[in-house]
């Protein structure tokens, strides 16, 4: 009975100085939490409040027509999809392959550590620098001009380090005993990787991929200078690769800064937020589902 002292009476047994410390810090914590929560609700609420009224079915499924004074972002939704697909189709195999090489095949530890350091550094480089290099290398030197392909290639270089990193981390969590067991049973290296190691790491790969998708959706600086800000509908995927096309984030910037159409900007912002929500939820769902299977 004597051990069950409630917290309040404990406070009365400490010095005034400690009580002051206690209350003031508690106050600061609640204030910070309050500020953050207000920001959360305020930002999300304001964007939806100003943007959702302008999101109509016509907005989502037609193209912008200046002559008729109509706004539509369907081409840009398509361009965002094309960019994501192209970038992932190139980056995922190379990234996963590189991670497998680094973790399973590479013999020299120095090389592995060097690559790990470089990938670590590259994940921190600002996207504007990727835009600069991409513009110079892909658009001008390789002659791709402002195109979805140039933008996707720039994105590949941007997301490659993080895909390699997340796949590597995932590979490292697979117990070495699995591999040893497979080898003991006579399985060759690739066979063991294909049947045992990869299934275990699939959840890491998927979350790395979804992370990359999130990064691509939010990317504006690099894409503005490599993929342009076109808004003309091109449904043919192959043709679209060579056309200047603006993704949603890029168009937000362009519509707001170049045309001063804030309503359109908020509408695109609302759509982007819903997209990010979907991406976050699918990341969690995928991780849970795949972990259970893996």
């Amino acid at each position, binding site marked *: 009975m004597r051990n069950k002292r409630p917290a309040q009476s404990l406070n009365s047994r400490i010095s005034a100085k400690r009580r002051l410390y206690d209350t003031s810090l508690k106050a600061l914590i609640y204030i910070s939490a309050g500020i953050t929560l207000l920001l959360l609700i305020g930002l999300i609420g304001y964007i939806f409040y100003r943007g959702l009224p302008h999101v109509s079915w016509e907005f989502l499924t037609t193209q912008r027509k200046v002559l008729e004074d109509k706004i539509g972002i369907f081409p840009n939704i398509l361009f965002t*999809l094309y960019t994501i697909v192209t970038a992932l189709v190139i980056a995922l195999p190379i990234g996963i392959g590189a991670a497998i090489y680094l973790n399973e095949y590479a013999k020299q530890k120095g090389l592995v550590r060097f690559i790990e350091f470089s990938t670590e550094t590259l994940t921190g480089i600002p996207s504007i620098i990727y835009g600069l290099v991409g513009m110079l290398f892909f658009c001008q030197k390789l002659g791709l001009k402002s195109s979805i392909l140039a933008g996707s290639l720039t994105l590949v270089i941007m997301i490659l380090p993080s895909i390699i990193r997340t796949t590597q981390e995932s590979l490292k969590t697979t117990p070495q005993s699995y591999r040893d067991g497979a080898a003991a049973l006579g399985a060759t290296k690739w066979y063991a990787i294909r049947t045992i190691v990869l299934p275990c790491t699939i959840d890491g790969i998927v979350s790395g991929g979804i992370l990359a998708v999130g990064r691509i959706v939010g990317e504006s600086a690099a894409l503005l200078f490599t993929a342009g800000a*076109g808004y003309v509908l091109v449904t043919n995927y*192959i043709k679209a690769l060579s056309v200047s096309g603006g993704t949603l984030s890029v168009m937000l910037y362009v519509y707001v800064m*170049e045309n001063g159409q804030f309503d359109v900007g908020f509408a695109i912002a609302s759509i982007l937020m819903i997209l990010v929500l979907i991406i976050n939820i699918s990341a969690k769902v995928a991780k849970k589902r795949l972990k259970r299977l893996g």
Partner: protein
Amino acid sequence: MKKVISIALAAVMCLVLFAGCASNTNTAASPSTAPSVAPTEETLSGTVSTNGSTSMEKVIAALSEAFMAKYPDVVVTYDATGSGAGITAATEGSADIGLASRDLKTEETGLDATVIAIDGIAIIVNKSNTVADLTLEQIASLAKGEVTNWKEVGGADAPVVFIGREAGSGTRDGFEAIVDVKDACKYEQELTSTGAVIAAVAANANAIGYASLSAVNDTVTAIKVNGVACTEATVLDGSYKIQRDFNMITKQGAELSSAAKAFMEFALSDEAASIIEKAGAIPPK
């Protein structure tokens, strides 16, 4: 469950790609069924990439939409990067047609400039500003930062916020050349497009800036310069002094695609004239 997810994802991707390929085969089929010898309007296809001046946005958007309505297989794209960027793009071949809202400088060699419209540079102030008329000298002193309060030019007692464009802008080039303040401007902000300047002036009661007449809307007031209002008529007859050409820049000697050539011819044609007027600029005489 994993299989279902991956099949679903694959199905979505295939849908997207096949939708694209399907439309391609449709449009590829039609020219072959049309019995003709000479290239008809339907066979013109390809992409025309234009790049450059932000002031020309409305004009190019209108022209390209009309052009694409005429030739459904052509895609005309426009990147609003600024006149300087447009000229660079034309030089380096990263765009078919560069767009510049100024004339070429002497050091910009190897390029051809085709005037497709004339545009006025409106001097804009916030709607609440009482100043309605300024002389070129007053505008110059405002731009150079010599006059810092509106009351010195007949307005309220408030600081002057002069908003300008980035260094590569054709609008800035035209403004600074005609008002004679080259390399001497003290801007409060340097924005990268005509639209941004208009938005900034509309948002700040003490702001003054310059923007293409074709882009000016009713969120700001365009003041008179030396007593002359900025309208299409005064630009055309030259009484509004601050004006410049809208140019399509192409590389000398570079072979333009037939679609790009057709687009340039279209921009200079008579049917384009009304479109250019509708967009707020003046077709060349």
